[in-house]
């Protein structure tokens, strides 16, 4: 053993570390080693989740950028592909037979196959949809989902935030906040956009 250690370049002083080792010492080293393996295993899992969260954040930024571009096109009166996301002008014939798009139509078309975000999926919970109405720890599938919230501006303080209900009518000038539901079911704010 000593010879082998010396042959691989371990000095005699290093050998001194292992002087008088007993079975319990080897057992301790094994426990130490196993603990490090467990920490590394769990850590790799956590890190992979963190990378997925990072990827989802980037996807979220893409969604914000898309909506900003979309709003600019609508404002300029240019043709848009996602007609279901075009907001109605305030007081422009609402209730007089003019069809107003709802949030369900818009978000559904965006994340549907062939939509601009059709490739996006919930990276943390692949079986669950990529978006949800709220981040709920009782619904495990909402982890990793995008959360869209309607912001009602309040001149006296911070804006009031409420979930975007599926039947919410899309009105021009509507402020929406996009967040990501993280692994611990906390919201990570990605950004805001205007319709």
């Amino acid at each position: 053993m000593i010879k082998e250690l010396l042959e691989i370049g371990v000095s005699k002083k290093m050998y001194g570390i292992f002087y008088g080792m007993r079975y319990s010492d080897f057992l301790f080293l094994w426990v130490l080693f196993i603990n490090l393996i467990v920490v590394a295993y769990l850590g790799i899992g956590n890190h992979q989740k963190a990378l997925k969260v990072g990827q989802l954040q980037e996807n979220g930024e893409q969604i914000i950028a898309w909506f900003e571009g979309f709003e600019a096109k609508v404002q300029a009166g240019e043709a848009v592909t996602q007609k279901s996301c075009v907001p109605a002008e305030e007081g422009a014939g609402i209730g007089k037979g003019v069809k107003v798009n709802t949030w369900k139509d818009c978000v559904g078309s965006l994340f549907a196959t062939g939509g601009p975000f059709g490739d996006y999926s919930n990276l943390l919970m692949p079986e669950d949809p990529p978006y949800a109405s709220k981040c709920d720890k009782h619904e495990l599938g909402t982890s990793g989902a995008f959360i869209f919230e309607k912001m009602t501006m309040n001149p006296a303080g911070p804006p009031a935030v409420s979930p975007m209900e599926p039947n919410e009518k899309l009105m021009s000038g509507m402020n929406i906040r996009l967040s990501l539901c993280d692994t611990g079911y906390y919201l990570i704010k990605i950004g805001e956009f205007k319709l």
Partner: protein
Amino acid sequence: MNLNSAPISSLNLRIRKRVYDLFFNAHIKNNYHHQFEHFITYMIVLNMAGLVLEHIPIIYESRQNLFHLFDVFSLGVFTAEYILRLYVAPEDPAFHSKKIPRLAFFKSPFALIDLISILPFYLGAFFEADLRVLRALRLLRLFKLFRAVTPAVHHFLEQNKHKSFRYKIYALVNETPTSGELHHIFDLMIVAWVILSVLSVIFESVQSVNYYLHSEFVILDIMAVAVFSTEYLMRIYSSPEDPRFKAWFTGRLKNATTPNSIIDLLAILPFYLESFLHHLFDLRFLRVFRLMRLLKLARYSGATQSLFIVIKREWPVMKASAFIMMLLVMLAACLGYLFEHEAQPDKFENIPQSIYWSVITLASVGYGDISPVTPAGRAITIVLALLGIGIFAIPAAILSSALSDQLRIDRETMMDELYHMLEDGVISAEEQELIEAEAKRLHLSKSELDRLLEKAKVQMGLDQTAAAQVAAGSGVVSSELNLEFLSKHPELAAEQLKITISKLQQIVSISNRDQLHQYVDDPNNVTPLQSELLKLLLKNSSKSK
């Protein structure tokens, strides 16, 4: 020409020696060796931090110039260090005896690491080189840390040569007579990780930071858990080496239930629990518990330990004080509820709400969200506010006085230790280190320590003088006085000589003179001086008879 070169060479030697003594000689106290080593170590650590931060675009991209400046500064520092080490190599005992000391230094492993960590950057200035490779080479600077660790490891192994593996682990994680510098390095590493990990938890809660550095925080946490769990296992495994926890199982269990071990466990437990049980329970609150790692630092602070001792000692008084405080809070809350409930049913809705008002008023915080409006309620508030000053001051005064007492006790204990160390008249290097460590723990300045040492020396001197005087007065020789002490007191030295001569005379007078003569005449038995002295004593003894 030779006449001129001789003084220059002499000057060069003197400068070299001076530089070596100032920055590299570990055996000289009060030079800049430790500061220099610490500075280099900090630079290495900062370089590593810089290397990591450069890979985070959000940090690096907007501060490229700053990173570049730091890189140039580091290169300058490490180059200066290398040149200095090369220059003073002939003074270094490790290379002094070699034929060409500087060549021997140049070929030494540490010097090669030093060179590799700086040379590529100079070569890069003249040749086409991939910048990424040059940057990666900075990782080699980490190996420079081995310059500090390797001697400590060798010293540790030497000190614990015949000790068991478990004892070595114990000596590494705990302060023992054989722990040496390696234990301090280990402690320093744990403290650094605690600070890094706590900072990481704090910044993780800042969304704008966490948004960009989430995966980096996760990596830091994994590394921190790996370090802390290894430390925890090492402490638990080696605890039977401590006489308090001798039994292999119950000893370890007893050790695991000590406050320090519980803190160590709490520092790592959130990671395991969150990983294994997150599907069963909502364990998000455990994330905040990672801040408990800060409590690990209490192990390294003497002041915290003193505070715990004081709280433990003064607990009965504190309990009484807390009881009075509680009584007053309850009484005030009940009266507040009684007088204010009708006037303000929304604010003094029930007694628990009144308790909140009572505590806020007693503690002189006074948020003002709940305040009395009735005359009786206001009258109570006046009394409560006045009493609050005194009541809350009691525990503070008790703690303050007890801490002061504890400090006095600690200093007295230190004085006793000093007396004990001075019994042989000399303070060895080890004793000096112990004194300095204790003085650091008690927050004594250098001048205060010197004053205490002087006091102890004077006290010891007085004791010995008194002993000598008693001995001289009674004509009986007391225990031997130490030579260092006598060298500083010639009158006592003369007295001691007289006593010794008297004793010699007594011995000669009761001995057989013929046999003594025979013994003294044999040159194998005595030295010429001893022979002369003994003959003189014998002659004197004959005369007196």
